[in-house]
C-alpha cells in the first residue's frame, strides 16, 4: 500500500518540480496539470473518490484551461511563451527558503507523535457527503458559493474592464 503512495508522491513531486523550473510556460502549465492529476490519484488512493473527481474536474478541466488562456492572452508573439528564470541569486535564495521550509516540516512530521492509522478508510458515500454539506456545513457552503460568485464577477470586471474607450473608436 505504501509503495503505491510513494510512487504517486514521487511522480507528483517530480512533475511539480520540473514544471516549476521549465523555461517554456506552456510546458510548465501542462506538466502542472499532470501534477494535479497526480494529486487526484492520491485522493483516489486515500479513498476520497468524490474529492478526487472534483479535483480532476476543477483543476484539469477548468483551472488548467483558464491558465492556458491567460498564457496565450499575455504574450507578444506566437513564440513568446518563454519565461526566463530570474536572477541566479534569487533562485538560490528561493531554493534555500524552500529547503528550509521542507526541512522544518519534514522534521515536525517525523517527530510528531501521530496517531496510528485506522484499519480501513472511513467510508463516506456521496449521499452522506451531500447530507453533511447541506446540514452541518450549510453555512460554509453558502459562504463558498458567495465567494465563488464574487470571485467570478470580480475576475470578469478585472479582466474585461479596460480603459474607457473613446466614442467612435469601436465599429
Amino acid at each position: 500500500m505504501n509503495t503505491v503512495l510513494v510512487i504517486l508522491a514521487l511522480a507528483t513531486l517530480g512533475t511539480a518540480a520540473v514544471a516549476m523550473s521549465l523555461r517554456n510556460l506552456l510546458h510548465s502549465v501542462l506538466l502542472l496539470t499532470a501534477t494535479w492529476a497526480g494529486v487526484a490519484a492520491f485522493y483516489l488512493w486515500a479513498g476520497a473518490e468524490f474529492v478526487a473527481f472534483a479535483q480532476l474536474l476543477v483543476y484539469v478541466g477548468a483551472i488548467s484551461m483558464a491558465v492556458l488562456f491567460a498564457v496565450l492572452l499575455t504574450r507578444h508573439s506566437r513564440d513568446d511563451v518563454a519565461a526566463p528564470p530570474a536572477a541566479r541569486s534569487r533562485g538560490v535564495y528561493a531554493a534555500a527558503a524552500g529547503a528550509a521550509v521542507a526541512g522544518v516540516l519534514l522534521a515536525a512530521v517525523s517527530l510528531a507523535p501521530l496517531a496510528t492509522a485506522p484499519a480501513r478508510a472511513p467510508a463516506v458515500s456521496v449521499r452522506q457527503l451531500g447530507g453533511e454539506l447541506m446540514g452541518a456545513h450549510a453555512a460554509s457552503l453558502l459562504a463558498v458559493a458567495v465567494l465563488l460568485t464574487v470571485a467570478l464577477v470580480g475576475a470578469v470586471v478585472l479582466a474585461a474592464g479596460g480603459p474607457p474607450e473613446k466614442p467612435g473608436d469601436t465599429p
Partner: protein
Amino acid sequence: MSPLQLCLAFSSLLFAVGLTGALARSNSILVLLGLELMLTAGSVNFIAFWRFGPPASPATGVVFAIFAIAVAAAETAVGLALVIAVYRHQRNIRLPEANRLKG
C-alpha cells in the same frame, strides 16, 4: 514511516516545491501556479488526516478538501484576471516590473 507520515511528508514537499517556484520565478503566472501548488498541499493534508488521523465526523476532511478546491478555483480566477489586467497595462507579466500601484 506510517502512511500518515508519508502523506504528510508528501504534502510538505509539495508545499516546499510550490514555495520555491513562487519565490524563484518572476513570471506572474508561474508564481500564481506556485501558490496553487501550496494550496493543493494543504488539501492533501486534509485528506491525509481524514484518512489516517484520529476518527472524527466521517465526512469532515472530505468537506474541507472540497471547500479548499473551491477556494483555490476562486483564487485562480481572480489571480489570472489580475495577470491579464497587469498585462494590459504594462505589456508584460514580469512581477518585478509590476511594482507600481498606479495604472
